[in-house]
């Protein structure tokens, strides 16, 4: 990714190389690591991984020791009875017992991990190359967002996974294993985060030219804070209408593909931009959310994301794009204190 964005990049993209590098470095931290679990399933699977690793190393060492012994010992060979006993015990009985233990352990985990979720459901629809996210509240209210999922800590939240075009796969390594999103099918996955923090998920099934640029932000919040946030988004906050950006957005047809609640823009081809100002990144987790990156993305969409279903709006002047970006990022009433980080996520 750094190579694509960083080297021999056209002028407007120079700044993005640094962003790509930052993302690579972020990959080394625990934000997207299955070995740094922050969720119930990931922890259980992680434990299983470590146990199996340790056991395999022990068995490997024993086999090596045996073969060393066999090739270096002198003196009388073993009687064939003794040899047969060793083969029976080490070659048949022990492996059978070990496999049985692993099987029982694994089978007991499965129903635990698949237990149903609690009241909140989140529908995630995969598309080339982004995620449509809809929070479905128990009373039927829906809150629309994209490319970011917020979750309450300590609750089992059910994900309803579908795809619009091709197969994608929803994977948040620190929280749980992956689950495919398949056109025409509904898959379910339950996540139970155990600590708060920001994590990164990714599409784990090749889905086209920008597959590698299809990530997503996950934020695990304390249940109270999450509840307060979700309640405050039940009626989507309206953006200020006075700005130039609003007029430019509508005049350039952005509204045919994007929804911004409280305006005429109600398109469903692209991500819902209502809550963009409080998301940490843009374009499915690939660029930190700030005015500069938005301007680059709007004017050079297809260079940044080959194959994206949004045309590059190169005919907009940087000033015009900036005023749209500024409008999109203006904090909405009631969203004070959000981290529309002009810093890196």
């Amino acid at each position: 990714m750094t190579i694509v964005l960083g080297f021999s990049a056209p002028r407007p993209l120079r700044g993005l190389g640094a962003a790509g590098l930052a993302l690579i470095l972020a990959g080394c931290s625990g934000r997207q690591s299955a070995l740094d679990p922050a969720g119930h399933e990931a922890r259980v699977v992680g434990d299983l991984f470590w146990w199996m690793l340790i056991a395999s190393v022990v068995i490997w060492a024993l086999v090596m020791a045996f073969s060393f012994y066999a090739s270096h010992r002198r003196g009388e060979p073993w009687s064939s009875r003794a040899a047969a006993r060793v083969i029976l015990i080490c070659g048949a009985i022990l492996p059978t017992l070990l496999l049985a233990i692993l099987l029982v352990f694994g089978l007991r985990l499965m129903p635990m991990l698949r237990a149903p979720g609690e009241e909140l459901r989140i529908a995630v629809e995969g598309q080339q190359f982004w995620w449509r996210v809809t929070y479905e509240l128990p009373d039927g209210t829906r809150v629309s967002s994209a490319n970011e999922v917020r979750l309450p800590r300590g609750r089992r939240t059910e994900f309803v996974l579908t795809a619009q075009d091709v197969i994608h796969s929803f994977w948040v390594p620190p929280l749980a294993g992956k689950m495919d999103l398949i056109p025409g099918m509904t898959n379910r996955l339950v996540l139970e985060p155990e600590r708060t923090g920001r994590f990164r998920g990714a599409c784990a099934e090749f889905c086209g030219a920008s597959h590698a640029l299809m990530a997503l932000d996950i934020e695990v919040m304390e249940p109270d804070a999450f509840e307060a946030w979700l309640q405050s988004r039940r009626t989507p906050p309206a953006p200020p209408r006075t700005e130039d950006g609003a007029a430019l957005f509508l005049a350039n047809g952005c509204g045919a593909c994007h929804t911004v609640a409280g305006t005429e823009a109600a398109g469903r081809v692209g991500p819902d931009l209502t809550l963009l100002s409080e998301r940490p990144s843009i374009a499915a987790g690939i660029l930190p959310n700030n005015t500069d990156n938005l301007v680059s993305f709007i004017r050079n969409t297809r260079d940044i994301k080959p194959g994206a279903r949004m045309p590059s709006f190169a005919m907009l002047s940087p000033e015009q794009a900036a005023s749209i970006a500024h409008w999109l990022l203006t904090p909405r009433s009631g969203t004070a204190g959000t981290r529309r980080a002009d810093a890196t996520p």
Partner: protein
Amino acid sequence: MVLRLRERADLWSLLMPPTIWALHFLFCYLVAAVTCARLGGVTLTKPNPGASFASLESFQPWVIGGTAVALALIAISAWQAWRHSGFGLEDPPHDAATPEDRQRFLGYATLLLSALSFVSVIFIALPAFLILDCR
């Protein structure tokens, strides 16, 4: 043809334990599929719309029965193979070109296959008791 006690070992007696293993496998899968299809369903009403999953409890007696039959048949075939192999009085490898050694070889191979099939049948039955619904 396969499921018959025999005076002498042949390829059919050798095939008996893995055949029982395969049939038991098929049996368990069929019974589970039928149970889940008949007792599960889709709920359209709140509070929990979506697929509803049948419990596997009603299916456990079937698995117990099928597994008991399969294990008994495998035990019989192991005992028969033990006889064919000469009651373990002769050491392997049984590789002389004589009718006796051919018998012992077949018997011994069948005995080992019986052990494998026995363990596999138990492994196949286990999920019915550890996974409790059709989810």
